[in-house]
Protein backbone atom coordinates (compact mmCIF):
# COMPACT_ATOMS: atom_id res chain seq x y z
CA UNK A 1 0.00 0.00 0.00
CA UNK A 2 1.04 3.57 -0.60
CA UNK A 3 2.73 4.52 2.65
CA UNK A 4 1.20 7.97 2.43
CA UNK A 5 -2.30 6.65 2.93
CA UNK A 6 -1.31 4.77 6.06
CA UNK A 7 -1.20 7.93 8.08
CA UNK A 8 -3.08 11.18 8.33
CA UNK A 9 -1.54 14.58 8.85
CA UNK A 10 -3.19 17.72 10.16
CA UNK A 11 -1.66 21.12 10.90
CA UNK A 12 -2.95 24.20 12.71
CA UNK A 13 -1.72 27.64 13.75
CA UNK A 14 -2.10 29.12 17.22
CA UNK A 15 -1.98 32.83 18.02
CA UNK A 16 -0.63 34.01 21.36
CA UNK A 17 -3.19 35.85 23.48
CA UNK A 18 -6.18 34.60 21.48
CA UNK A 19 -8.06 32.74 24.20
CA UNK A 20 -11.39 32.81 22.38
CA UNK A 21 -10.12 30.53 19.62
CA UNK A 22 -8.08 28.13 21.71
CA UNK A 23 -9.59 24.69 21.43
CA UNK A 24 -10.12 24.61 17.68
CA UNK A 25 -7.26 22.17 16.94
CA UNK A 26 -8.35 19.84 19.74
CA UNK A 27 -11.93 19.88 18.47
CA UNK A 28 -10.79 19.06 14.93
CA UNK A 29 -8.55 16.27 16.10
CA UNK A 30 -11.38 14.89 18.19
CA UNK A 31 -13.66 14.81 15.17
CA UNK A 32 -11.14 12.87 13.13
CA UNK A 33 -10.46 10.36 15.92
CA UNK A 34 -14.18 9.81 16.37
CA UNK A 35 -14.58 9.14 12.66
CA UNK A 36 -11.77 6.61 12.92
CA UNK A 37 -13.69 4.82 15.65
CA UNK A 38 -11.08 5.35 18.40
CA UNK A 39 -12.58 4.67 21.82
CA UNK A 40 -13.95 7.52 23.87
CA UNK A 41 -11.53 7.34 26.81
CA UNK A 42 -8.45 7.45 24.59
CA UNK A 43 -9.89 10.39 22.65
CA UNK A 44 -10.68 12.25 25.83
CA UNK A 45 -7.10 11.97 27.10
CA UNK A 46 -5.69 13.20 23.79
CA UNK A 47 -8.10 16.12 23.60
CA UNK A 48 -7.39 17.21 27.17
CA UNK A 49 -3.62 17.09 26.63
CA UNK A 50 -3.76 18.93 23.32
CA UNK A 51 -6.07 21.59 24.72
CA UNK A 52 -3.68 22.25 27.62
CA UNK A 53 -0.77 22.51 25.19
CA UNK A 54 -2.72 24.94 23.02
CA UNK A 55 -3.65 27.10 25.99
CA UNK A 56 -0.02 27.20 27.09
CA UNK A 57 0.99 28.66 23.74
CA UNK A 58 -1.86 31.17 23.92
CA UNK A 59 -1.09 32.12 27.55
CA UNK A 60 2.70 32.01 27.63
CA UNK A 61 4.09 32.24 24.10
CA UNK A 62 3.72 34.45 21.02
CA UNK A 63 2.62 32.06 18.33
CA UNK A 64 2.80 28.42 17.49
CA UNK A 65 1.84 25.49 15.31
CA UNK A 66 0.26 22.11 15.94
CA UNK A 67 1.32 19.15 13.80
CA UNK A 68 -0.67 15.98 14.16
CA UNK A 69 0.14 12.63 12.66
CA UNK A 70 -2.20 9.69 13.07
CA UNK A 71 -1.33 6.17 12.02
CA UNK A 72 -2.85 2.78 12.66
CA UNK A 73 -1.58 2.44 16.21
CA UNK A 74 -0.93 5.93 17.57
CA UNK A 75 -1.26 9.67 17.38
CA UNK A 76 1.78 11.95 17.55
CA UNK A 77 1.21 15.62 18.29
CA UNK A 78 3.93 18.25 18.12
CA UNK A 79 3.12 21.71 19.47
CA UNK A 80 5.89 24.14 18.58
CA UNK A 81 5.95 27.75 19.68
CA UNK A 82 7.99 30.91 19.42
CA UNK A 83 8.07 32.40 22.89
CA UNK A 84 9.98 32.97 26.11
CA UNK A 85 10.75 29.28 26.60
CA UNK A 86 10.77 27.41 29.90
CA UNK A 87 13.98 27.91 31.92
CA UNK A 88 13.41 25.02 34.33
CA UNK A 89 11.23 22.31 32.82
CA UNK A 90 11.29 20.11 35.90
CA UNK A 91 9.99 22.97 38.02
CA UNK A 92 7.33 23.86 35.45
CA UNK A 93 6.10 20.26 35.50
CA UNK A 94 5.27 20.46 39.19
CA UNK A 95 1.58 20.62 39.97
CA UNK A 96 0.60 24.13 41.00
CA UNK A 97 3.67 25.89 39.57
CA UNK A 98 2.65 28.79 37.40
CA UNK A 99 4.04 32.08 36.16
CA UNK A 100 0.70 33.07 34.61
CA UNK A 101 -0.06 36.79 34.68
CA UNK A 102 -2.93 38.22 36.69
CA UNK A 103 -4.85 38.77 33.44
CA UNK A 104 -4.51 35.11 32.47
CA UNK A 105 -5.58 34.01 35.95
CA UNK A 106 -8.67 36.17 35.77
CA UNK A 107 -9.66 34.23 32.67
CA UNK A 108 -9.70 31.03 34.68
CA UNK A 109 -6.27 29.72 33.66
CA UNK A 110 -3.00 29.67 35.55
CA UNK A 111 -3.61 26.99 38.19
CA UNK A 112 -0.31 25.38 37.22
CA UNK A 113 -2.08 22.17 36.29
CA UNK A 114 -1.65 22.16 32.51
CA UNK A 115 1.67 20.34 32.22
CA UNK A 116 0.82 17.78 34.94
CA UNK A 117 -2.47 17.17 33.14
CA UNK A 118 -0.64 16.63 29.87
CA UNK A 119 1.67 14.15 31.57
CA UNK A 120 -1.28 12.28 33.02
CA UNK A 121 -3.16 12.06 29.73
CA UNK A 122 -0.38 11.04 27.35
CA UNK A 123 1.67 7.87 26.94
CA UNK A 124 4.80 9.85 26.09
CA UNK A 125 5.52 13.53 26.71
CA UNK A 126 8.76 15.16 25.63
CA UNK A 127 9.39 18.87 26.21
CA UNK A 128 12.29 20.75 24.73
CA UNK A 129 12.74 24.44 25.33
CA UNK A 130 15.19 27.23 24.70
CA UNK A 131 14.89 30.46 26.66
CA UNK A 132 13.82 33.46 24.53
CA UNK A 133 13.36 31.21 21.52
CA UNK A 134 10.53 28.80 22.14
CA UNK A 135 9.21 25.48 23.30
CA UNK A 136 8.43 22.21 21.57
CA UNK A 137 6.06 19.74 23.17
CA UNK A 138 5.78 16.27 21.70
CA UNK A 139 2.99 13.98 22.85
CA UNK A 140 2.29 10.41 21.81
CA UNK A 141 -0.81 8.36 22.61
CA UNK A 142 -1.24 4.74 21.59
CA UNK A 143 -4.63 3.43 20.54
CA UNK A 144 -6.14 0.34 22.17
Amino acid at each position, binding site marked *: MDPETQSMKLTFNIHGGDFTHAGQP*SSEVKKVLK*QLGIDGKTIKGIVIALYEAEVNVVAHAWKGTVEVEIDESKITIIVRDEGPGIPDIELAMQAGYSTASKKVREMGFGAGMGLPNMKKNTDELIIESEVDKGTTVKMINYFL
Partner: protein
Amino acid sequence: MSGLPTYHALKVDAVKCIGCTHCMKSCPTEAIRVIDGLAVIDHERCVYCGQCHRACPTRAFYVEQDDLEMIRSFKYRVILFPSIMIGQFPEKYSEDQIYAGLKKVGFTHVYEVEQPMQVLIDSVHEVLEDQETHKPAISIYCPAIVRLIQGRYPSLTENLILRKAPHNLAAHFAIEQLIEEGARREEIGLFYATPCIAKIAAVKSPVGERESIVDGVVNMNQLYNEVMKVIADGDAEDNSIQRENLSAEGITWSLTRGESCHFGSRSIAIDGIHNAVRFLERLENDQVHGIDFIEMRACDQSCAGGILLTGNRFMTVERLERRAKRYPAAKDIAQTTIRVDTEELKQKLILDPIKPKPHFIFGKDRVKAMEKMNKAQRIVCFLPGIDCGSCGAPNCHALAEDMVNNKAKMSDCIYLQQMWVDEGRIKAEKAFLNVQKKWGTDRFKADCNKRGRRNEGF
Protein backbone atom coordinates in the same frame (compact mmCIF):
# COMPACT_ATOMS: atom_id res chain seq x y z
CA MET B 1 -31.26 -2.64 25.76
CA SER B 2 -34.61 -2.70 24.04
CA GLY B 3 -34.93 -5.17 21.21
CA LEU B 4 -37.70 -3.09 19.69
CA PRO B 5 -37.12 -1.76 16.19
CA THR B 6 -36.58 1.98 16.10
CA TYR B 7 -39.76 3.67 15.06
CA HIS B 8 -39.54 6.35 12.42
CA ALA B 9 -42.55 8.59 12.58
CA LEU B 10 -41.09 11.34 10.42
CA LYS B 11 -41.86 11.02 6.72
CA VAL B 12 -41.41 13.15 3.60
CA ASP B 13 -44.38 13.69 1.31
CA ALA B 14 -42.96 13.25 -2.19
CA VAL B 15 -45.74 15.34 -3.72
CA LYS B 16 -45.15 18.36 -1.49
CA CYS B 17 -41.35 18.21 -1.31
CA ILE B 18 -39.78 20.64 -3.77
CA GLY B 19 -36.20 19.62 -3.02
CA CYS B 20 -35.18 23.06 -1.84
CA THR B 21 -32.34 22.15 0.61
CA HIS B 22 -33.78 24.12 3.56
CA CYS B 23 -34.21 20.96 5.65
CA MET B 24 -30.83 19.59 4.63
CA LYS B 25 -29.11 22.78 5.76
CA SER B 26 -30.90 22.92 9.10
CA CYS B 27 -30.15 19.35 10.15
CA PRO B 28 -27.72 19.23 13.10
CA THR B 29 -26.46 15.75 12.20
CA GLU B 30 -26.23 16.10 8.40
CA ALA B 31 -28.80 13.33 8.11
CA ILE B 32 -30.58 14.67 5.02
CA ARG B 33 -29.61 14.48 1.36
CA VAL B 34 -31.56 15.62 -1.67
CA ILE B 35 -31.78 12.70 -4.08
CA ASP B 36 -33.68 12.91 -7.37
CA GLY B 37 -35.11 16.25 -6.25
CA LEU B 38 -36.48 14.89 -2.96
CA ALA B 39 -35.33 15.13 0.65
CA VAL B 40 -34.24 11.74 1.98
CA ILE B 41 -33.66 11.16 5.71
CA ASP B 42 -30.95 8.82 6.94
CA HIS B 43 -32.76 7.30 9.91
CA GLU B 44 -29.55 6.06 11.49
CA ARG B 45 -28.32 9.62 11.88
CA CYS B 46 -31.65 11.34 12.52
CA VAL B 47 -32.17 12.37 16.15
CA TYR B 48 -35.83 13.44 15.68
CA CYS B 49 -35.22 17.04 16.72
CA GLY B 50 -37.72 18.31 14.14
CA GLN B 51 -35.48 21.04 12.68
CA CYS B 52 -36.28 19.87 9.14
CA HIS B 53 -39.99 19.96 9.86
CA ARG B 54 -39.62 23.57 11.02
CA ALA B 55 -37.44 24.57 8.08
CA CYS B 56 -39.68 23.14 5.37
CA PRO B 57 -41.47 25.88 3.41
CA THR B 58 -43.99 23.46 1.85
CA ARG B 59 -44.84 21.36 4.94
CA ALA B 60 -43.63 18.26 3.20
CA PHE B 61 -42.55 16.63 6.46
CA TYR B 62 -45.36 14.86 8.23
CA VAL B 63 -45.62 12.83 11.35
CA GLU B 64 -47.30 9.46 11.31
CA GLN B 65 -49.60 8.66 14.17
CA ASP B 66 -51.90 5.93 15.40
CA ASP B 67 -55.56 5.93 14.49
CA LEU B 68 -57.56 7.49 17.32
CA GLU B 69 -60.25 4.87 16.72
CA MET B 70 -58.02 2.20 18.22
CA ILE B 71 -58.79 3.49 21.71
CA ARG B 72 -62.28 1.98 21.44
CA SER B 73 -60.97 -1.52 22.02
CA PHE B 74 -60.17 -0.76 25.68
CA LYS B 75 -62.55 -0.49 28.60
CA TYR B 76 -60.37 2.04 30.41
CA ARG B 77 -59.04 4.59 27.95
CA VAL B 78 -56.36 6.80 29.44
CA ILE B 79 -54.99 9.90 27.75
CA LEU B 80 -51.58 10.93 29.04
CA PHE B 81 -50.41 14.36 27.98
CA PRO B 82 -47.76 16.83 29.05
CA SER B 83 -49.05 19.89 30.88
CA ILE B 84 -48.03 22.16 28.02
CA MET B 85 -51.10 20.96 26.14
CA ILE B 86 -53.32 22.86 28.53
CA GLY B 87 -51.38 26.00 27.59
CA GLN B 88 -52.46 25.54 23.95
CA PHE B 89 -56.13 26.19 24.47
CA PRO B 90 -57.70 29.64 24.31
CA GLU B 91 -57.73 31.10 27.78
CA LYS B 92 -61.49 31.28 27.94
CA TYR B 93 -61.63 27.51 28.42
CA SER B 94 -61.20 26.24 31.97
CA GLU B 95 -59.17 23.20 32.87
CA ASP B 96 -62.39 21.32 33.58
CA GLN B 97 -63.80 22.23 30.18
CA ILE B 98 -60.66 20.93 28.50
CA TYR B 99 -60.76 17.73 30.54
CA ALA B 100 -64.44 17.33 29.65
CA GLY B 101 -63.55 17.83 25.99
CA LEU B 102 -60.96 15.04 26.18
CA LYS B 103 -63.57 12.74 27.63
CA LYS B 104 -66.00 13.63 24.85
CA VAL B 105 -63.32 12.63 22.35
CA GLY B 106 -63.52 9.17 23.90
CA PHE B 107 -61.17 8.89 26.86
CA THR B 108 -62.35 7.70 30.25
CA HIS B 109 -59.39 8.96 32.28
CA VAL B 110 -57.30 12.07 31.84
CA TYR B 111 -53.77 12.33 33.24
CA GLU B 112 -51.26 15.09 32.84
CA VAL B 113 -47.96 13.23 32.79
CA GLU B 114 -46.00 15.29 35.30
CA GLN B 115 -47.36 13.60 38.41
CA PRO B 116 -46.70 12.64 41.14
CA MET B 117 -43.59 14.76 40.54
CA GLN B 118 -41.95 14.38 43.94
CA VAL B 119 -41.35 10.69 43.17
CA LEU B 120 -39.25 11.55 40.12
CA ILE B 121 -37.53 14.48 41.85
CA ASP B 122 -36.48 12.21 44.75
CA SER B 123 -35.36 9.54 42.34
CA VAL B 124 -33.11 11.94 40.41
CA HIS B 125 -31.72 13.28 43.70
CA GLU B 126 -30.67 9.75 44.59
CA VAL B 127 -28.72 9.49 41.34
CA LEU B 128 -27.02 12.83 41.92
CA GLU B 129 -26.00 11.90 45.45
CA ASP B 130 -24.47 8.62 44.30
CA GLN B 131 -20.65 8.87 44.28
CA GLU B 132 -20.50 6.72 41.14
CA THR B 133 -22.52 9.18 39.06
CA HIS B 134 -20.53 10.90 36.32
CA LYS B 135 -20.77 14.67 36.62
CA PRO B 136 -22.14 16.74 35.15
CA ALA B 137 -25.12 14.43 35.08
CA ILE B 138 -27.32 14.98 32.03
CA SER B 139 -31.09 14.60 32.05
CA ILE B 140 -32.65 12.09 29.64
CA TYR B 141 -35.85 14.14 29.50
CA CYS B 142 -35.53 15.10 25.84
CA PRO B 143 -35.16 11.97 23.68
CA ALA B 144 -33.67 13.97 20.81
CA ILE B 145 -30.78 14.93 23.09
CA VAL B 146 -30.31 11.31 24.18
CA ARG B 147 -30.04 10.20 20.57
CA LEU B 148 -27.70 13.08 19.77
CA ILE B 149 -25.42 12.02 22.61
CA GLN B 150 -25.52 8.34 21.67
CA GLY B 151 -24.64 9.10 18.09
CA ARG B 152 -22.37 12.11 18.17
CA TYR B 153 -20.99 12.25 21.72
CA PRO B 154 -20.85 8.55 22.61
CA SER B 155 -18.42 9.04 25.50
CA LEU B 156 -21.03 11.19 27.27
CA THR B 157 -23.64 8.41 27.44
CA GLU B 158 -22.21 7.57 30.85
CA ASN B 159 -23.30 10.98 32.13
CA LEU B 160 -26.97 10.33 31.35
CA ILE B 161 -29.23 10.02 34.38
CA LEU B 162 -30.82 6.60 34.26
CA ARG B 163 -34.28 7.62 35.38
CA LYS B 164 -37.32 7.57 33.12
CA ALA B 165 -39.21 10.60 31.83
CA PRO B 166 -42.54 11.91 33.18
CA HIS B 167 -44.67 10.02 30.64
CA ASN B 168 -43.46 6.77 32.20
CA LEU B 169 -44.08 8.12 35.66
CA ALA B 170 -47.70 8.95 34.86
CA ALA B 171 -48.22 5.72 32.93
CA HIS B 172 -47.12 3.57 35.87
CA PHE B 173 -49.08 5.81 38.21
CA ALA B 174 -52.28 5.60 36.13
CA ILE B 175 -52.03 1.81 35.92
CA GLU B 176 -51.58 1.47 39.69
CA GLN B 177 -54.47 3.81 40.41
CA LEU B 178 -56.84 2.08 37.98
CA ILE B 179 -55.95 -1.38 39.25
CA GLU B 180 -56.64 -0.04 42.73
CA GLU B 181 -60.07 0.93 41.44
CA GLY B 182 -60.67 -2.61 40.23
CA ALA B 183 -59.50 -2.51 36.60
CA ARG B 184 -57.55 -5.40 35.07
CA ARG B 185 -54.28 -4.48 33.35
CA GLU B 186 -55.40 -5.77 29.94
CA GLU B 187 -58.53 -3.60 30.10
CA ILE B 188 -56.42 -0.45 30.34
CA GLY B 189 -55.36 1.32 27.16
CA LEU B 190 -52.76 4.08 27.57
CA PHE B 191 -52.42 6.77 24.92
CA TYR B 192 -49.83 9.49 24.86
CA ALA B 193 -50.39 12.91 23.33
CA THR B 194 -46.98 13.89 21.99
CA PRO B 195 -45.52 17.36 21.48
CA CYS B 196 -42.84 16.09 19.10
CA ILE B 197 -41.39 13.27 16.99
CA ALA B 198 -38.63 12.57 19.48
CA LYS B 199 -41.15 11.55 22.14
CA ILE B 200 -42.97 9.34 19.64
CA ALA B 201 -39.80 7.39 18.99
CA ALA B 202 -39.05 7.33 22.72
CA VAL B 203 -42.49 6.00 23.54
CA LYS B 204 -42.67 3.46 20.72
CA SER B 205 -39.11 2.20 20.84
CA PRO B 206 -37.72 3.38 24.16
CA VAL B 207 -33.98 3.46 24.85
CA GLY B 208 -32.99 1.74 28.09
CA GLU B 209 -36.44 0.17 28.57
CA ARG B 210 -37.55 -3.33 27.67
CA GLU B 211 -40.93 -2.52 26.21
CA SER B 212 -43.11 0.43 25.44
CA ILE B 213 -45.60 1.16 28.18
CA VAL B 214 -48.21 2.92 26.06
CA ASP B 215 -50.59 1.41 23.53
CA GLY B 216 -50.73 4.30 21.14
CA VAL B 217 -49.53 7.80 20.36
CA VAL B 218 -51.63 10.77 19.26
CA ASN B 219 -50.13 13.95 17.85
CA MET B 220 -50.89 16.85 20.12
CA ASN B 221 -52.02 19.15 17.32
CA GLN B 222 -54.48 16.57 16.08
CA LEU B 223 -55.85 15.92 19.56
CA TYR B 224 -56.16 19.66 20.01
CA ASN B 225 -58.28 19.84 16.86
CA GLU B 226 -60.46 16.95 18.03
CA VAL B 227 -61.05 18.57 21.40
CA MET B 228 -61.78 21.96 19.85
CA LYS B 229 -64.56 20.33 17.82
CA VAL B 230 -66.40 19.19 20.94
CA ILE B 231 -65.35 21.56 23.69
CA ALA B 232 -68.22 23.50 25.31
CA ASP B 233 -68.29 26.86 27.07
CA GLY B 234 -70.87 25.83 29.63
CA ASP B 235 -70.55 24.23 33.04
CA ALA B 236 -68.17 21.30 33.01
CA GLU B 237 -68.03 18.41 35.38
CA ASP B 238 -65.54 18.92 38.22
CA ASN B 239 -62.49 16.89 37.24
CA SER B 240 -60.12 18.34 39.80
CA ILE B 241 -59.72 14.94 41.46
CA GLN B 242 -57.73 13.91 38.37
CA ARG B 243 -55.35 16.76 39.06
CA GLU B 244 -54.92 16.27 42.77
CA ASN B 245 -51.35 15.10 42.27
CA LEU B 246 -50.39 17.85 39.90
CA SER B 247 -47.87 20.31 41.33
CA ALA B 248 -46.31 23.61 40.37
CA GLU B 249 -43.07 21.74 39.60
CA GLY B 250 -44.94 19.31 37.36
CA ILE B 251 -46.57 22.04 35.34
CA THR B 252 -43.32 23.83 34.60
CA TRP B 253 -41.18 20.66 34.21
CA SER B 254 -41.26 20.71 30.41
CA LEU B 255 -40.20 24.38 30.20
CA THR B 256 -36.63 25.64 30.10
CA ARG B 257 -35.13 25.50 33.62
CA GLY B 258 -38.15 23.40 34.68
CA GLU B 259 -35.82 20.61 35.74
CA SER B 260 -32.49 22.25 36.35
CA CYS B 261 -33.85 24.56 39.05
CA HIS B 262 -34.38 21.55 41.31
CA PHE B 263 -31.04 19.82 41.02
CA GLY B 264 -27.39 20.20 41.86
CA SER B 265 -25.68 23.04 43.60
CA ARG B 266 -24.68 24.27 40.15
CA SER B 267 -26.88 23.49 37.20
CA ILE B 268 -27.27 24.58 33.60
CA ALA B 269 -30.27 24.60 31.26
CA ILE B 270 -29.80 24.60 27.50
CA ASP B 271 -32.53 24.72 24.89
CA GLY B 272 -32.26 24.54 21.11
CA ILE B 273 -30.51 21.72 19.30
CA HIS B 274 -27.69 23.84 17.87
CA ASN B 275 -26.94 25.29 21.31
CA ALA B 276 -26.89 21.75 22.65
CA VAL B 277 -24.41 20.67 19.97
CA ARG B 278 -22.03 23.50 20.83
CA PHE B 279 -22.22 22.82 24.51
CA LEU B 280 -21.80 19.05 24.21
CA GLU B 281 -18.72 19.70 22.12
CA ARG B 282 -17.18 21.64 25.02
CA LEU B 283 -18.34 19.11 27.55
CA GLU B 284 -16.76 16.30 25.58
CA ASN B 285 -13.49 18.24 25.47
CA ASP B 286 -13.60 18.40 29.26
CA GLN B 287 -13.82 22.17 29.18
CA VAL B 288 -16.80 22.40 31.55
CA HIS B 289 -15.99 22.35 35.23
CA GLY B 290 -17.94 22.42 38.48
CA ILE B 291 -21.41 21.79 37.00
CA ASP B 292 -23.48 19.00 38.59
CA PHE B 293 -26.63 18.88 36.52
CA ILE B 294 -27.47 19.68 32.91
CA GLU B 295 -30.96 20.03 31.52
CA MET B 296 -30.88 19.96 27.73
CA ARG B 297 -33.78 20.17 25.31
CA ALA B 298 -33.82 20.11 21.53
CA CYS B 299 -36.46 22.79 21.07
CA ASP B 300 -36.15 26.51 21.64
CA GLN B 301 -38.22 27.18 24.82
CA SER B 302 -38.11 23.41 25.41
CA CYS B 303 -41.38 21.54 24.88
CA ALA B 304 -43.33 24.78 24.52
CA GLY B 305 -41.52 24.90 21.16
CA GLY B 306 -42.35 21.29 20.21
CA ILE B 307 -43.25 20.92 16.54
CA LEU B 308 -46.69 19.42 17.21
CA LEU B 309 -47.88 22.32 19.33
CA THR B 310 -50.38 24.81 18.04
CA GLY B 311 -49.79 27.86 20.22
CA ASN B 312 -47.00 30.41 20.17
CA ARG B 313 -44.19 29.07 22.36
CA PHE B 314 -43.62 32.25 24.36
CA MET B 315 -47.34 32.58 25.12
CA THR B 316 -47.43 28.94 26.17
CA VAL B 317 -44.59 29.51 28.63
CA GLU B 318 -46.32 32.52 30.13
CA ARG B 319 -49.59 30.65 30.59
CA LEU B 320 -47.96 27.67 32.21
CA GLU B 321 -46.00 29.82 34.59
CA ARG B 322 -49.21 31.53 35.60
CA ARG B 323 -51.03 28.23 35.95
CA ALA B 324 -48.25 26.81 38.12
CA LYS B 325 -48.82 29.56 40.67
CA ARG B 326 -52.25 28.11 41.38
CA TYR B 327 -50.89 24.67 42.22
CA PRO B 328 -49.23 23.34 45.38
CA ALA B 329 -45.54 22.48 45.66
CA ALA B 330 -44.75 18.82 44.89
CA LYS B 331 -43.51 18.12 48.40
CA ASP B 332 -46.78 19.42 49.88
CA ILE B 333 -48.83 16.82 48.09
CA ALA B 334 -49.34 14.25 50.81
CA GLN B 335 -48.53 10.57 50.48
CA THR B 336 -52.16 9.90 51.31
CA THR B 337 -53.31 11.81 48.26
CA ILE B 338 -51.03 9.83 45.97
CA ARG B 339 -52.72 6.57 47.03
CA VAL B 340 -50.09 4.26 45.53
CA ASP B 341 -46.84 2.84 46.85
CA THR B 342 -44.34 5.57 45.94
CA GLU B 343 -41.32 3.37 46.72
CA GLU B 344 -42.54 0.82 44.21
CA LEU B 345 -43.21 3.58 41.68
CA LYS B 346 -39.68 4.86 42.17
CA GLN B 347 -38.27 1.40 41.43
CA LYS B 348 -40.13 1.37 38.15
CA LEU B 349 -38.41 4.56 37.04
CA ILE B 350 -34.95 3.02 36.83
CA LEU B 351 -33.57 2.73 33.29
CA ASP B 352 -31.15 0.17 31.91
CA PRO B 353 -27.78 1.65 30.89
CA ILE B 354 -27.89 3.63 27.66
CA LYS B 355 -25.32 2.45 25.16
CA PRO B 356 -23.40 4.62 22.71
CA LYS B 357 -24.34 4.28 19.05
CA PRO B 358 -21.63 6.20 17.22
CA HIS B 359 -22.81 6.91 13.69
CA PHE B 360 -19.93 8.94 12.37
CA ILE B 361 -17.42 6.15 11.94
CA PHE B 362 -15.82 5.55 8.55
CA GLY B 363 -15.94 1.76 8.88
CA LYS B 364 -14.49 -0.70 11.37
CA ASP B 365 -11.04 -1.15 9.83
CA ARG B 366 -8.89 1.75 11.02
CA VAL B 367 -6.44 1.69 8.12
CA LYS B 368 -9.24 1.65 5.57
CA ALA B 369 -11.05 4.40 7.46
CA MET B 370 -7.90 6.52 7.37
CA GLU B 371 -7.54 5.92 3.65
CA LYS B 372 -11.09 7.08 3.12
CA MET B 373 -10.59 10.17 5.24
CA ASN B 374 -7.40 11.07 3.43
CA LYS B 375 -9.23 10.66 0.17
CA ALA B 376 -12.08 12.86 1.38
CA GLN B 377 -9.53 15.51 2.41
CA ARG B 378 -7.96 15.41 -1.05
CA ILE B 379 -11.39 15.70 -2.68
CA VAL B 380 -12.21 18.73 -0.55
CA CYS B 381 -9.19 20.47 -2.10
CA PHE B 382 -10.99 20.41 -5.45
CA LEU B 383 -14.40 21.53 -4.22
CA PRO B 384 -15.16 25.27 -4.16
CA GLY B 385 -16.08 25.52 -0.45
CA ILE B 386 -19.28 27.42 -1.17
CA ASP B 387 -21.43 24.90 0.73
CA CYS B 388 -24.30 25.69 -1.62
CA GLY B 389 -26.09 22.37 -1.38
CA SER B 390 -26.67 22.10 -5.14
CA CYS B 391 -24.99 18.71 -5.09
CA GLY B 392 -27.66 17.39 -2.71
CA ALA B 393 -25.29 17.29 0.27
CA PRO B 394 -25.36 19.91 3.05
CA ASN B 395 -21.81 21.16 2.44
CA CYS B 396 -18.69 20.47 0.40
CA HIS B 397 -17.13 18.33 3.09
CA ALA B 398 -20.23 16.17 3.42
CA LEU B 399 -20.20 15.67 -0.35
CA ALA B 400 -16.57 14.53 -0.18
CA GLU B 401 -17.49 12.06 2.55
CA ASP B 402 -20.42 10.79 0.50
CA MET B 403 -18.07 10.33 -2.44
CA VAL B 404 -15.63 8.13 -0.56
CA ASN B 405 -18.58 6.13 0.71
CA ASN B 406 -19.69 5.68 -2.92
CA LYS B 407 -22.85 7.66 -2.37
CA ALA B 408 -21.97 10.58 -4.63
CA LYS B 409 -19.67 11.46 -7.48
CA MET B 410 -17.42 14.35 -8.53
CA SER B 411 -19.87 15.53 -11.17
CA ASP B 412 -22.49 16.16 -8.47
CA CYS B 413 -20.66 19.41 -7.76
CA ILE B 414 -22.14 21.90 -10.20
CA TYR B 415 -19.07 24.16 -10.11
CA LEU B 416 -16.65 21.35 -10.78
CA GLN B 417 -18.85 20.26 -13.64
CA GLN B 418 -18.93 23.77 -15.01
CA MET B 419 -15.16 23.83 -14.91
CA TRP B 420 -14.98 20.54 -16.78
CA VAL B 421 -17.30 21.91 -19.45
CA ASP B 422 -15.08 24.96 -19.71
CA GLU B 423 -12.02 22.76 -20.07
CA GLY B 424 -13.83 20.72 -22.70
CA ARG B 425 -13.68 17.58 -20.60
CA ILE B 426 -17.40 16.97 -20.77
CA LYS B 427 -20.13 18.22 -23.05
CA ALA B 428 -22.54 20.92 -21.88
CA GLU B 429 -25.52 18.65 -22.72
CA LYS B 430 -24.13 15.90 -20.53
CA ALA B 431 -23.55 18.34 -17.66
CA PHE B 432 -27.12 19.58 -17.90
CA LEU B 433 -28.45 16.02 -17.90
CA ASN B 434 -26.52 15.38 -14.69
CA VAL B 435 -28.12 18.37 -13.01
CA GLN B 436 -31.56 17.33 -14.24
CA LYS B 437 -31.01 13.88 -12.87
CA LYS B 438 -30.37 15.34 -9.46
CA TRP B 439 -33.12 17.94 -9.40
CA GLY B 440 -35.75 16.60 -11.80
CA THR B 441 -36.49 17.43 -15.42
CA ASP B 442 -39.11 20.10 -14.69
CA ARG B 443 -36.94 21.92 -12.22
CA PHE B 444 -35.50 24.46 -14.60
CA LYS B 445 -38.66 25.32 -16.52
CA ALA B 446 -40.19 28.72 -15.96
CA ASP B 447 -42.94 28.53 -13.33
CA CYS B 448 -44.53 31.62 -11.84
CA ASN B 449 -45.70 29.71 -8.75
CA LYS B 450 -42.22 28.74 -7.70
CA ARG B 451 -41.11 29.61 -4.23
CA GLY B 452 -39.67 33.10 -4.10
CA ARG B 453 -42.10 34.36 -6.71
CA ARG B 454 -44.83 35.23 -4.24
CA ASN B 455 -42.78 37.28 -1.84
CA GLU B 456 -42.60 34.55 0.82
CA GLY B 457 -39.26 35.91 1.98
CA PHE B 458 -38.61 37.94 5.05
